[in-house]
């Protein structure tokens, strides 16, 4: 079995994103966690690119890394949590409390593994799906979901705006 360059890139980027994600969820400093998350996103973007979805990969970088996480970082900086080292959330009965999510997660992985194994075949019809194909699917076949998505965003916008304005505490502080 030979490995092509794509395989190498995939496994490298995949391992990279797994490692950075692990780091992201275990950091105590939110900024480091976010940086690791950005790394993970870049790794995933690479994976997506390798999987033949350059458009999605670009969006992953532009939207996720470039807007979503920047916003996140912005809020963290605004909260000025630089020195707020947060603990892991587990104090008493550490082993027991870690065991619960551990068991949960492992059983889910096993379940999904069983569910996936032996299904959907092994062969892959690999070809690159460029932006125009996606665009056609998106704007012709899925025009109603697009509208629903835009309404979702509008609702989120209004909700965020309202929640940010509504400030009963401001008078007291």
């Amino acid at each position, binding site marked *: 079995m030979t490995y*092509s360059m*794509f*395989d190498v890139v*995939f496994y490298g980027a*995949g391992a990279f994103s*797994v490692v950075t*994600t692990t780091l*992201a*969820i*275990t950091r105590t400093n*939110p900024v480091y*966690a976010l940086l690791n*998350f950005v790394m*993970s996103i870049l790794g*995933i973007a690479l994976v*997506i690119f390798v*999987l*033949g*979805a350059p458009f*999605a990969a670009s*969006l992953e970088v532009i*939207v*996720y890394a470039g*807007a*979503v996480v920047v*916003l*996140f970082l912005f*809020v*963290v900086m*605004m*909260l000025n*949590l630089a020195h707020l080292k*947060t*603990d*892991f*959330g*587990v104090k008493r009965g550490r082993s027991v*409390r*870690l065991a619960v999510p*551990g068991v949960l*997660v492992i059983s*889910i*992985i096993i379940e999904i593994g069983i569910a996936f194994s032996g299904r959907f075949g*092994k062969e*892959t*019809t*690999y070809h690159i*799906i460029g932006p125009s194909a*996606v665009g*056609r*699917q998106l704007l012709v076949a899925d025009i109603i*979901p697009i509208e629903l*998505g835009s309404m*979702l*965003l509008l609702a*989120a916008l209004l*909700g*965020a705006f309202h*929640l*940010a304005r509504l400030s009963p505490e401001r008078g007291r502080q």
Partner: protein
Amino acid sequence: MINLSWQAPASLAIILFALGLIGLITRRNLIFVILSIEVMLNAVALLFIVAGMRWGHPDGQVMFIFILNLAGGELALGLVLLLRLRARITTLDGDSANILRES
């Protein structure tokens, strides 16, 4: 050319999802809760890409776009709530944000 089967990236997505779930369950800090949710969303998005690759259909990427949409909206609201919560309880410990309880 490429001889990557779909199982490997799918497994990657599942691992990332599991990591996000662990983070969601174990972390107290609400920033990390939101972060974990984003990780999970991201993993699901990746899984859709994998499905799109498996069947060679753009629908996978379409779903990816919808998930981005959802993640954006979710994050905006989540962060605003985070700010409000911070103003109210002066900590970001999710466990102490249970003052809705009656007794």
